[in-house]
Structure formats: C-alpha cells, structure tokens
C-alpha cells in the first residue's frame, strides 16, 4: 500500500450506536487525519509522454495542419500568402501532370508492394526452416541494405545499371543478351526504381515476417503434419492465415511508403526519361522548389494524404475480416 495513502479512521471513532442498540461503522468521507486534503499522486510516466507528445504536436501535427491551411493560399515564400479558397484544388484537377504522376505512382505501388510482400515472405519462410543454418548471418545480410542511406544505394545502383559498363549489362552480355539502357529507357526506368526500392526495403519485410512466423504455435504445424499435410499445404492452411496480421501491416506500410518515394527518383532519374518515373512526391517537390508555388504544392500534399488514407481504408476493409476470423 502506498505510504501516503489516506489512513483509515480509528475503528472506535467510526462506530455509531443506533437507537435500537445495534451498532454500525461508517467510513467517514473525510479522512480522520490531521492533514487538510489528500495529495494526488501523478505518475511520472505522464511527464515523459507529455514531453514527447508536445514535440510530436509541435513538429508534426502543427506543420501538417499548417500545410493543409496553406493549400488554400497562393504562396511563394517571398510575397504574402493570398487566400484563393479551393482554386489550388481546381487547378490540380485540371493539371495533366498530377494525373500522370499519380498514375506512375500507382503503377509503382502495385508492382513494388506485392513484390516486396511475396519476396519477403519466401525469404522469411526459408530462413525459418529448421534445416537452415546461419539464420543470424542471413538476417543481418538481408537487413543491411535497409540501414544504408537511400542516396548511397541509388548511387551504387546507378553504376550497376550503367548500360556501358554496369555489372548487370556486362553479365547479360556474357550470356549473349544486349541489356537495355535501364535508366534511359522509358520502358525500364520505373522498373529500376521498383527494383532498388524493393532491394532496399526487403530486409525490413523479412524481419517482420520472421517475428510473425515465430509467433505461430508449433502445435498447429504438428496437427497438420499428423493429418498428412505437405509443407506447401502447411504454409497455405496454417502459415498464411496466421500471418495475416503481419501481411496486413506490411501491405499498409508498403503502400504508404510507395506514395512517399522521392530519393531514388531524385538521384537516379530526375523524374525522366520522358516523365516515366515522375512520381507524385517528386512532382510535389518540383512544384514547391522549382516553380516556387508552395500553396499548390501543399494542395498536392493533401491529395497524397487523401490517396494514402483511401488506400489504407481499402486495405483495412480487405484484411479486417481475415484477421478477425483468427480471433
């Protein structure tokens, strides 16, 4: 019991003799102490959380709200902001580049996210096998790209993909195949961005999958084995359903990340060739800093937020039943 708890009143002081001779004790609603009011004790955890919440509010929530507000203004950072109402949104609806960039981003997302989900799962399944030796080393190797700066990664991959002396085309040439100009060909440039991003983020998926796999009770696999299920049937009937929360998490995070891709595009292609890799965040950056139209860029940011929210809700609905079926 805490040392500063309100002391109970002395028993005799709390007993009251009723007219019929019975007695009753009552708990006084005022403590029988010489102190005037109870000291309320605040948990120190609240202080720590409050500080963090304050910083999050100041550096994330306030700028977000500021960005939304700015989307209703015309502002170039030099002259005072001018209220224009929904004009930026009207403009966005008529801007062909917004549509093209969104389309490129969706193309990127529906390629990169499933690829990352499937590749990450396959690797995690192999690493989780009992016969696999060197799990720790393998996990480290797969996760290493994830800790490297995307700028450095893009730099290295530009060299690998170089059409003249990059290692990929050199290997292809060795088997008699003329490799394309990967980053200079509108048909392959977006694929290269997908490849680099998936390669960079694969380790994260693998680690999360492994955590999910280790949370699946062994008893289900034993039961499946007793029933004569093959390894593939065990994966289909036991692993995949029970991994659904993990898949849901990775899918939602994957799509959110897909709508934020910028560094690889900036470093490797500059949005080209022929706008084939001009993803929506890159276009936002161009509008904000090349064309100095911060209000319009904020409107595009709100559009991205809405798109990501919509995709998240769609996925939530898709996965919800499957996840709830597990409980």
């Amino acid at each position, binding site marked *: 019991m805490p040392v500063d708890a309100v002391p109970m009143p002395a028993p005799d002081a709390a007993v009251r003799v009723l007219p019929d001779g019975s007695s009753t004790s009552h708990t006084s609603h005022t403590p029988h102490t010489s102190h005037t009011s109870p000291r309320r004790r605040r948990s120190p955890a609240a*202080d720590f959380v409050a500080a963090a919440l304050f910083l999050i509010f100041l550096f994330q929530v306030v700028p977000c709200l500021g960005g939304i507000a700015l989307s209703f203004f*015309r*502002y*170039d*950072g*030099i*002259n005072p902001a*001018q209220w*224009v109402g929904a004009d930026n949104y009207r*403009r966005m609806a*008529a*801007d*062909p*580049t917004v549509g093209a960039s969104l389309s490129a981003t969706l193309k990127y997302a529906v390629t990169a996210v499933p690829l990352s989900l499937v590749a990450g799962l396959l690797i995690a399944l192999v690493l989780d096998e009992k016969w696999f030796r060197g799990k720790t080393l393998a996990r480290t190797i797969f996760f290493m790209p994830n800790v490297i700066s995307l700028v450095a990664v*893009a*730099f290295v991959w*530009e*060299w690998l993909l*170089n*059409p*003249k002396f990059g290692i990929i085309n050199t290997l292809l040439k060795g088997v008699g195949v003329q490799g394309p*100009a990967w*980053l*200079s*060909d*509108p048909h392959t440039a977006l694929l290269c961005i997908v490849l680099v991003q998936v390669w960079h983020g694969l380790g994260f998926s693998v680690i999360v999958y492994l955590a999910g796999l280790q949370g699946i009770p062994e008893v289900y696999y034993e039961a499946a084995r007793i029933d004569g299920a093959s390894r593939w049937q065990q994966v289909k009937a036991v692993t995949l359903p029970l991994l659904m929360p993990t898949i849901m998490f990775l899918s939602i995070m994957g799509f959110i990340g897909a709508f934020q891709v910028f560094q690889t595009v*900036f*470093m*490797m*292609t*500059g949005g*080209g*060739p*022929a*706008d084939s890799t001009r993803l929506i965040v890159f276009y936002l950056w*161009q509008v904000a*800093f*090349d*064309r*100095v*139209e*911060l*209000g*319009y860029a904020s409107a595009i940011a709100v559009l991205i937020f809405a798109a990501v929210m919509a995709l998240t809700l769609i996925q939530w609905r898709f996965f919800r039943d499957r996840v709830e079926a597990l409980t």
Partner: protein
Amino acid sequence: MRALAATIIALVLLSGANALWQRQRAGGRVEIEMSVWGMPFENALYLKEYIPEFERQNPGIKVRFHHLDNYASRILMLRAGGIAPDVMRQNVDFGAQLIRRGMNLPLDRFMDGPDGIDRGDFIPVTWEALRSGGKTYGIPQDINIRALFYNKDLFDSAKIPYPDERWTWKELKDAAERLADPARNGGKQGIVGLLAGFHCFDWLPFYYEAGGRVWDSGKSIPAFNNEKAVESLLYLKSLSKDFLMSQSSSERGGLGPYTFFQNGQAGMLIDGSWRTPQLKKDGKRLRFGVAPLPRDQKAMSISTSCYWGISAQTRHPAEAWKLAKFLSSREALIRYWQTLWVAPPARWSSLRSSEFQHITGAGRDSPALPDPAEFREKCAWIPSVLEHDWTTMEFVGPFTNQMRDKLDYAVSDVLLRNADPHAALTKAERETIQQIHEAEKTFAR
C-alpha cells in the same frame, strides 16, 4: 507545468544571450551575410582571399559567409523566414523567377550612383536575365557556354581535322559517323561518335542555330512551336544511333556522358565550359580540345550566368552593395577564373586581360594550365564566342522552369519514343501556357 515554464524561460534567455553575443562579435561593425553554393574547395577563395580583403578595405563591415547545399530551396526558405542573406550568389536558371517575384533589391540607384559600376564593361548578354520591369536586380559574375569537346587522339586516328568555328551541322554529323565506324576510324571498336544528353537544354543550341527563339519579346508566351524547332529536333535525332548513354551531363551518379568522353570512349561531347577543368583533372590520358558548337543558319550556343544579388529584405543595402560590387570587380573575377576556370568572367576588362590566359588552378582540386598552347586549344574559343555574340540566354525568364518541364518531356518523347515532333511541341506549348497562366497569379503585382 513548472518544468515547462522553466524550459520556455531558459529558451528565451538563451535567445537573448545569443543576440548579445552576435552583437559583441560584430564588434560595433555592420554585419552582413553572404551565401554561395559550389564545391567545398571553392570556399577557400571567399574565406581566405575575398572576405579578408574586403574587410580590410571596409573596416566598418563584417562579412559572415555561408555555404549552402540545395541552394535554391535554401535561400527561398531563408527568405520565407525573413533571414535571407544580404548578398546571395544566384544563377539565372533559378534566379530569374525569384527576381520577378520580388526576392532581390533593384540596384540601379547604386549602379548609377557615385559608388557605381561601368555597366558597359559587362558582357551584354549577362544583363538579359537580370532586368525586370525596367530595373536591374544583380551584378553578373560569370557566364558559362555550351561547347564541343573533341578527343584529339580519336580525331587523329580517324584522320578528321579538328573542329573549329567554321564547322557546320554537316561536318558534325559526318565526323560523328566516321568516328563510330571501325572501318573509318582506324579500327577502333566501341567508340561513340558524339555524346550529349537528351534534355531540352541539349536541344536548345541546335534550335537557336536554326534561327529559332523560345519566347515572345515579353518572355511570357512560348514561341518554340514552329518548323525550325521540328527541323532541329529531327537533326538531333539523326545524330543519335541509340541512347545507351545516361540522361544528361549533370547526372548525379557521376555517370553523365562526360564520363565516357573522359575515358576515351567518345570522339565528341557537347557540354558546358564548366566541364573543361574537370576533364583536365580526371582524364589523365585524355588529349582533348574545345571548339564552338557547329553552326547552321547561324553560330549560336546557350549560356547561363551567375550573379550577385542583394536581398530585398536586407537592412544594410549600402554595405551589401559594397560587397556585391567588390565580388564582381575586375580583379575578383580574374582571380575566380584563374583559380577555378569553370566559367569565364562576365567583364570585358577581365576577359580581355593578359591574366585571363594564366590559369593558376587551386591545387589538387582545380588543375593549372601553364602551357599557352594548351590554353589555346581548351579556352581560346571562349573570347571568340563572346566577342562575336555567339551565345544567348534568350530562354531565361520568369517562366523558364515551366517551359523546361514541358520541353524536357517533348524532347525526350521525340528522341526516345519516336513521338511526332509537331504533336510533341504543340502539347508542350499548350501545357506551358497553362502553367504560366497559373504561375502568373502568384507573381507580385
């Protein structure tokens, strides 16, 4: 609550202490700030030469130096925060629209005042992008020019005379084909005849040589949708056998077309004058020369220019003017050229001086050019182009970024996807007009 109040009070006290310290550091002098971008080794010129000399000549002024990365975005954000540097190095590339939006102070009253400058000493084309509404918003520092780099060994092997200012489009194409053909280039395999990027700035010189222009006289209506544009696009396309090369000379991975030229794998390269010291430094076995771009209807190249602008927010305009004037003085520009030689000085008096031909370099980072013969083959083309007015900045204006965005797409669509040039240019024109219409609303009245 007490902790929060204590934190806020501490922050206020710290800010006050910082302000006092800043004032004390200035030592009673007027403190002004200047900003530049560039390679870190360039900072030494400002920190060890320019600023100490300026402060010695102006003991009442103290200069704080800032080297900023992501320069255009940074100065914009500083401006939005009300703390833009007093004197800013700017490039017409991004500077023209900032001028139009009111970022810079008009300098006419200083230029034409008792402490003014001789405007006639500056190369005329460098003033083009600095004027808006009849006022001037910067002092030119340098001018860079696109040129034709050629590999002397490959030209010797293919028995082709070196390019010079008499070359036309025909000579360029013939040479490119000959250099790439093992049967005619002395048996060399895998050689590329000509390297260039495929952005609109790679095409614009050809367009200007065909007699075209990008803007109307007010620089607000695009004028690039015409037969000259189609002709020059088709010519550029005819020069290209394939597009195995990287996108542009400014490829961030360090794998622009110049890399192949530097490694002796290409006979010719079209790039800017800034490429010369880098090729000299990194192409150890490369013997190369530089010539003006071949002509069509006329000889023409494109340029951009760096200049010194003064922030419209400055609280010390007179002191800022002194610094800007100092940084663009004849002596400062000669020193800049002699050390870095990435772009020739914007003053005639610097360009025509004997010091212009003495490139001292900056140690390991920027090689010297002591041999007069080597100077002639790499740099003599510059005065020739400028004296004959064979370069232009006509494309520079407040809406250059809008134009470039759409023209980049059109050019690469034609070159890479075999799009019809007429359709591509019409689409680019329509979308540029749309973007300009929207951008104009954000400009200062």
